[in-house]
Protein backbone atom coordinates (compact mmCIF):
# COMPACT_ATOMS: atom_id res chain seq x y z
CA UNK A 1 0.00 0.00 0.00
CA UNK A 2 1.52 3.32 -1.03
CA UNK A 3 1.67 6.51 0.99
CA UNK A 4 -1.29 8.08 -0.84
CA UNK A 5 -3.56 5.14 -0.06
CA UNK A 6 -2.48 5.26 3.60
CA UNK A 7 -3.07 9.00 3.65
CA UNK A 8 -6.56 8.40 2.24
CA UNK A 9 -7.38 5.86 4.96
CA UNK A 10 -6.08 8.21 7.65
CA UNK A 11 -8.09 11.12 6.21
CA UNK A 12 -11.24 8.97 6.09
CA UNK A 13 -10.72 8.01 9.72
CA UNK A 14 -10.26 11.64 10.78
CA UNK A 15 -13.36 12.63 8.78
CA UNK A 16 -15.36 9.89 10.51
CA UNK A 17 -14.27 11.13 13.94
CA UNK A 18 -15.14 14.73 13.03
CA UNK A 19 -18.55 13.65 11.71
CA UNK A 20 -19.30 11.73 14.91
CA UNK A 21 -18.21 14.69 17.04
CA UNK A 22 -20.33 17.08 14.98
CA UNK A 23 -23.40 14.81 15.16
CA UNK A 24 -23.03 14.47 18.92
CA UNK A 25 -22.61 18.22 19.48
CA UNK A 26 -25.63 18.92 17.26
CA UNK A 27 -27.77 16.35 19.08
CA UNK A 28 -26.78 17.78 22.45
CA UNK A 29 -27.34 21.39 21.43
CA UNK A 30 -30.70 20.55 19.87
CA UNK A 31 -32.14 18.77 22.89
CA UNK A 32 -35.45 20.21 24.05
CA UNK A 33 -37.67 18.18 26.38
CA UNK A 34 -40.95 17.20 24.71
CA UNK A 35 -42.88 17.57 27.95
CA UNK A 36 -43.26 20.75 29.99
CA UNK A 37 -43.20 18.88 33.28
CA UNK A 38 -42.21 15.57 34.85
CA UNK A 39 -44.56 13.42 36.96
CA UNK A 40 -44.45 14.59 40.55
CA UNK A 41 -43.72 11.06 41.80
CA UNK A 42 -40.15 11.31 40.55
CA UNK A 43 -39.45 14.18 42.94
CA UNK A 44 -38.19 13.20 46.39
CA UNK A 45 -40.08 14.31 49.49
CA UNK A 46 -39.90 16.87 50.96
CA UNK A 47 -40.10 18.80 47.70
CA UNK A 48 -37.27 21.26 47.15
CA UNK A 49 -37.99 24.51 45.28
CA UNK A 50 -35.59 23.26 42.60
CA UNK A 51 -34.39 19.69 41.96
CA UNK A 52 -31.74 18.52 39.52
CA UNK A 53 -33.05 15.32 37.92
CA UNK A 54 -30.55 13.54 35.74
CA UNK A 55 -31.08 10.54 33.51
CA UNK A 56 -28.45 7.84 33.81
CA UNK A 57 -27.83 4.52 32.08
CA UNK A 58 -25.65 1.47 32.55
CA UNK A 59 -23.09 2.62 30.01
CA UNK A 60 -22.42 6.17 31.18
CA UNK A 61 -19.18 7.01 32.91
CA UNK A 62 -20.02 10.72 32.53
CA UNK A 63 -23.12 10.27 34.75
CA UNK A 64 -20.92 9.68 37.80
CA UNK A 65 -19.74 13.30 37.45
CA UNK A 66 -23.23 14.83 37.49
CA UNK A 67 -24.00 14.83 41.25
CA UNK A 68 -20.57 16.34 41.92
CA UNK A 69 -21.23 19.12 39.39
CA UNK A 70 -24.60 19.88 41.03
CA UNK A 71 -22.93 19.84 44.45
CA UNK A 72 -20.21 22.21 43.26
CA UNK A 73 -22.66 24.56 41.53
CA UNK A 74 -25.58 24.65 43.97
CA UNK A 75 -25.29 22.39 47.01
CA UNK A 76 -28.79 23.46 48.07
CA UNK A 77 -30.33 21.78 45.00
CA UNK A 78 -30.80 18.01 45.46
CA UNK A 79 -29.46 15.85 42.62
CA UNK A 80 -31.74 12.91 41.87
CA UNK A 81 -30.71 10.16 39.43
CA UNK A 82 -33.32 8.55 37.17
CA UNK A 83 -32.28 5.44 35.29
CA UNK A 84 -33.54 5.24 31.72
CA UNK A 85 -33.81 1.49 32.31
CA UNK A 86 -36.19 2.06 35.25
CA UNK A 87 -38.22 4.84 33.59
CA UNK A 88 -38.07 4.05 29.86
CA UNK A 89 -41.52 5.54 29.22
CA UNK A 90 -40.65 8.86 30.82
CA UNK A 91 -37.29 9.05 29.03
CA UNK A 92 -39.02 8.37 25.70
CA UNK A 93 -41.80 10.87 26.39
CA UNK A 94 -39.25 13.57 27.20
CA UNK A 95 -37.16 12.76 24.14
CA UNK A 96 -34.07 11.79 26.12
CA UNK A 97 -31.63 10.17 23.70
CA UNK A 98 -28.45 10.20 25.72
CA UNK A 99 -27.15 10.15 29.27
CA UNK A 100 -26.57 12.12 31.33
CA UNK A 101 -29.47 14.44 30.57
CA UNK A 102 -30.06 17.01 33.27
CA UNK A 103 -33.41 18.61 34.07
CA UNK A 104 -33.84 21.41 36.57
CA UNK A 105 -37.42 21.14 37.80
CA UNK A 106 -39.45 23.12 40.31
CA UNK A 107 -41.51 21.72 43.19
CA UNK A 108 -44.49 21.12 40.89
CA UNK A 109 -42.42 19.21 38.36
CA UNK A 110 -42.18 22.00 35.75
CA UNK A 111 -38.98 21.79 33.73
CA UNK A 112 -37.09 25.06 34.12
CA UNK A 113 -33.94 24.07 32.29
CA UNK A 114 -32.74 21.01 30.37
CA UNK A 115 -29.40 19.93 28.97
CA UNK A 116 -28.12 16.79 27.30
CA UNK A 117 -24.65 16.12 28.71
CA UNK A 118 -23.07 17.62 31.78
CA UNK A 119 -22.98 21.41 32.17
CA UNK A 120 -20.01 23.08 33.82
CA UNK A 121 -20.61 24.05 37.48
CA UNK A 122 -20.49 27.73 36.49
CA UNK A 123 -23.10 27.26 33.74
CA UNK A 124 -25.34 25.23 36.05
CA UNK A 125 -25.12 27.92 38.72
CA UNK A 126 -26.30 30.48 36.13
CA UNK A 127 -29.27 28.25 35.19
CA UNK A 128 -30.17 27.72 38.87
CA UNK A 129 -30.01 31.45 39.41
CA UNK A 130 -32.24 32.15 36.37
CA UNK A 131 -34.73 29.46 37.40
CA UNK A 132 -34.81 30.88 40.91
CA UNK A 133 -35.42 34.41 39.60
CA UNK A 134 -38.32 33.24 37.43
CA UNK A 135 -39.83 31.32 40.37
CA UNK A 136 -39.59 34.49 42.43
CA UNK A 137 -41.21 36.58 39.69
CA UNK A 138 -44.04 34.07 39.40
CA UNK A 139 -44.54 34.21 43.17
CA UNK A 140 -43.98 30.47 43.53
CA UNK A 141 -41.49 30.71 46.37
CA UNK A 142 -42.65 30.45 49.96
CA UNK A 143 -40.75 32.16 52.76
CA UNK A 144 -39.55 28.69 53.84
CA UNK A 145 -38.19 28.04 50.36
CA UNK A 146 -36.24 31.28 50.40
CA UNK A 147 -34.76 30.30 53.75
CA UNK A 148 -33.64 26.99 52.22
CA UNK A 149 -31.55 28.74 49.62
CA UNK A 150 -30.04 31.76 51.35
CA UNK A 151 -27.41 32.20 48.63
CA UNK A 152 -30.17 32.73 46.08
CA UNK A 153 -32.05 35.48 47.90
Amino acid at each position, binding site marked *: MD*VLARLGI*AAALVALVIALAWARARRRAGFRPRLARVPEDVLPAPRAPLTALYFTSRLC*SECAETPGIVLDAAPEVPAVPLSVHDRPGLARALGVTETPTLLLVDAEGRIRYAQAGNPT*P*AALWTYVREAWDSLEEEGRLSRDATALLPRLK
Partner: protein
Amino acid sequence: MELEPALVAALRLFLVARASSFPVPRIDPRAPRFNQGVVGALSLVAFVLKVPLLLPVLALLLGAGAFLGPQANPLALLWKHAVVPALKLGPPARLKDAAPVRFAQGVGFAFLAAASLALLVFASPLVGWGLALLVAALALLAAVTDVCVGCEVYSLLARWTGRSAQA
Protein backbone atom coordinates in the same frame (compact mmCIF):
# COMPACT_ATOMS: atom_id res chain seq x y z
CA MET B 1 -16.67 -23.77 38.40
CA GLU B 2 -19.05 -21.88 36.14
CA LEU B 3 -17.47 -19.44 33.75
CA GLU B 4 -19.44 -16.30 34.62
CA PRO B 5 -18.89 -16.31 38.44
CA ALA B 6 -15.22 -17.10 37.83
CA LEU B 7 -14.93 -14.22 35.40
CA VAL B 8 -16.70 -11.87 37.81
CA ALA B 9 -14.40 -12.98 40.66
CA ALA B 10 -11.32 -12.43 38.49
CA LEU B 11 -12.48 -8.98 37.41
CA ARG B 12 -13.36 -8.00 40.98
CA LEU B 13 -9.91 -9.14 42.13
CA PHE B 14 -8.32 -7.16 39.30
CA LEU B 15 -10.22 -3.97 40.13
CA VAL B 16 -9.68 -4.24 43.90
CA ALA B 17 -5.97 -5.04 43.45
CA ARG B 18 -5.55 -2.07 41.18
CA ALA B 19 -7.39 0.23 43.57
CA SER B 20 -5.52 -0.94 46.65
CA SER B 21 -1.99 -1.19 45.30
CA PHE B 22 -1.98 2.07 43.36
CA PRO B 23 -3.72 5.06 44.88
CA VAL B 24 -5.58 6.85 42.10
CA PRO B 25 -6.07 10.55 42.72
CA ARG B 26 -8.34 12.94 40.89
CA ILE B 27 -6.75 14.50 37.84
CA ASP B 28 -7.11 17.42 35.45
CA PRO B 29 -9.57 16.01 32.84
CA ARG B 30 -7.84 17.98 30.06
CA ALA B 31 -4.60 15.99 30.50
CA PRO B 32 -6.02 12.63 29.28
CA ARG B 33 -7.66 14.38 26.33
CA PHE B 34 -4.33 15.91 25.39
CA ASN B 35 -2.77 12.47 25.78
CA GLN B 36 -5.48 10.91 23.59
CA GLY B 37 -5.02 13.55 20.93
CA VAL B 38 -1.26 13.04 20.77
CA VAL B 39 -1.51 9.23 20.81
CA GLY B 40 -4.22 9.27 18.13
CA ALA B 41 -2.36 11.69 15.89
CA LEU B 42 0.99 9.90 16.23
CA SER B 43 -0.62 6.50 15.59
CA LEU B 44 -1.95 7.92 12.32
CA VAL B 45 1.46 9.41 11.47
CA ALA B 46 3.05 6.00 12.13
CA PHE B 47 0.51 4.39 9.78
CA VAL B 48 0.82 6.95 6.98
CA LEU B 49 4.63 7.12 7.05
CA LYS B 50 4.96 3.38 7.79
CA VAL B 51 6.97 3.85 10.97
CA PRO B 52 6.02 0.84 13.13
CA LEU B 53 8.72 1.70 15.69
CA LEU B 54 6.55 4.62 16.84
CA LEU B 55 3.91 2.20 18.15
CA PRO B 56 5.97 0.63 20.98
CA VAL B 57 6.98 4.15 22.04
CA LEU B 58 3.31 5.13 22.28
CA ALA B 59 2.57 1.84 24.07
CA LEU B 60 5.24 2.71 26.65
CA LEU B 61 3.68 6.13 27.24
CA LEU B 62 0.28 4.54 27.84
CA GLY B 63 1.90 1.77 29.89
CA ALA B 64 3.38 4.39 32.21
CA GLY B 65 -0.12 5.81 32.67
CA ALA B 66 -1.62 2.38 33.25
CA PHE B 67 0.98 1.05 35.69
CA LEU B 68 2.06 4.23 37.52
CA GLY B 69 -1.15 6.24 37.20
CA PRO B 70 -2.33 8.67 34.50
CA GLN B 71 -0.57 11.56 36.25
CA ALA B 72 2.77 9.75 35.63
CA ASN B 73 2.17 9.44 31.89
CA PRO B 74 4.92 11.55 30.24
CA LEU B 75 2.29 13.25 28.07
CA ALA B 76 0.33 14.24 31.20
CA LEU B 77 3.55 15.67 32.64
CA LEU B 78 4.10 17.54 29.37
CA TRP B 79 0.57 18.90 29.62
CA LYS B 80 1.02 19.98 33.24
CA HIS B 81 4.51 21.44 33.03
CA ALA B 82 4.70 22.75 29.46
CA VAL B 83 1.31 23.16 27.76
CA VAL B 84 -0.65 24.65 30.67
CA PRO B 85 2.02 27.29 31.49
CA ALA B 86 2.72 28.01 27.80
CA LEU B 87 -0.95 28.61 26.99
CA LYS B 88 -1.54 30.31 30.37
CA LEU B 89 -4.47 28.00 31.08
CA GLY B 90 -6.23 28.23 34.42
CA PRO B 91 -7.12 25.30 36.64
CA PRO B 92 -9.84 22.93 35.37
CA ALA B 93 -13.47 23.53 36.37
CA ARG B 94 -13.56 20.11 38.05
CA LEU B 95 -11.15 17.26 38.64
CA LYS B 96 -11.83 13.74 37.39
CA ASP B 97 -11.39 10.33 39.00
CA ALA B 98 -8.22 8.81 37.57
CA ALA B 99 -9.32 5.15 37.78
CA PRO B 100 -11.31 4.94 34.49
CA VAL B 101 -8.59 6.87 32.67
CA ARG B 102 -6.00 4.49 34.02
CA PHE B 103 -8.00 1.50 32.85
CA ALA B 104 -8.45 3.08 29.40
CA GLN B 105 -4.71 3.72 29.15
CA GLY B 106 -4.15 0.08 30.11
CA VAL B 107 -6.39 -1.01 27.24
CA GLY B 108 -4.57 1.35 24.88
CA PHE B 109 -1.24 -0.04 26.08
CA ALA B 110 -2.41 -3.62 25.45
CA PHE B 111 -3.67 -2.81 21.93
CA LEU B 112 -0.55 -0.88 20.93
CA ALA B 113 1.73 -3.54 22.43
CA ALA B 114 -0.16 -6.18 20.43
CA ALA B 115 0.10 -3.99 17.30
CA SER B 116 3.84 -3.62 17.85
CA LEU B 117 4.30 -7.38 18.25
CA ALA B 118 2.21 -8.07 15.16
CA LEU B 119 4.26 -5.64 13.06
CA LEU B 120 7.77 -6.10 14.45
CA VAL B 121 7.81 -9.76 15.50
CA PHE B 122 5.12 -11.62 13.56
CA ALA B 123 5.27 -9.53 10.37
CA SER B 124 1.50 -9.25 10.22
CA PRO B 125 0.75 -5.77 8.89
CA LEU B 126 -3.00 -6.30 8.59
CA VAL B 127 -3.40 -7.10 12.29
CA GLY B 128 -0.76 -4.61 13.42
CA TRP B 129 -2.01 -1.60 11.48
CA GLY B 130 -5.62 -2.60 12.10
CA LEU B 131 -5.07 -2.43 15.86
CA ALA B 132 -3.11 0.82 15.53
CA LEU B 133 -5.90 2.41 13.49
CA LEU B 134 -8.48 1.25 16.04
CA VAL B 135 -6.47 2.93 18.82
CA ALA B 136 -6.07 6.05 16.66
CA ALA B 137 -9.81 6.27 15.98
CA LEU B 138 -10.84 5.76 19.62
CA ALA B 139 -8.14 8.11 20.93
CA LEU B 140 -9.09 10.87 18.48
CA LEU B 141 -12.78 10.38 19.26
CA ALA B 142 -12.02 10.73 22.97
CA ALA B 143 -9.84 13.79 22.38
CA VAL B 144 -12.49 15.54 20.27
CA THR B 145 -15.72 14.51 22.03
CA ASP B 146 -14.60 13.32 25.50
CA VAL B 147 -16.29 9.98 24.73
CA CYS B 148 -13.75 7.58 26.26
CA VAL B 149 -14.68 4.05 25.25
CA GLY B 150 -12.16 2.52 27.68
CA CYS B 151 -13.69 4.57 30.53
CA GLU B 152 -17.17 3.33 29.57
CA VAL B 153 -15.89 -0.26 29.62
CA TYR B 154 -14.37 0.39 33.05
CA SER B 155 -17.68 1.81 34.26
CA LEU B 156 -19.54 -1.24 32.92
CA LEU B 157 -17.05 -3.72 34.44
CA ALA B 158 -17.09 -1.92 37.78
CA ARG B 159 -20.88 -2.02 37.82
CA TRP B 160 -20.89 -5.65 36.74
CA THR B 161 -18.41 -6.69 39.42
CA GLY B 162 -20.23 -4.68 42.09
CA ARG B 163 -17.63 -2.02 42.67
CA SER B 164 -18.92 1.51 42.59
CA ALA B 165 -17.38 3.45 39.73
CA GLN B 166 -16.75 7.13 39.55
CA ALA B 167 -15.64 8.43 36.20
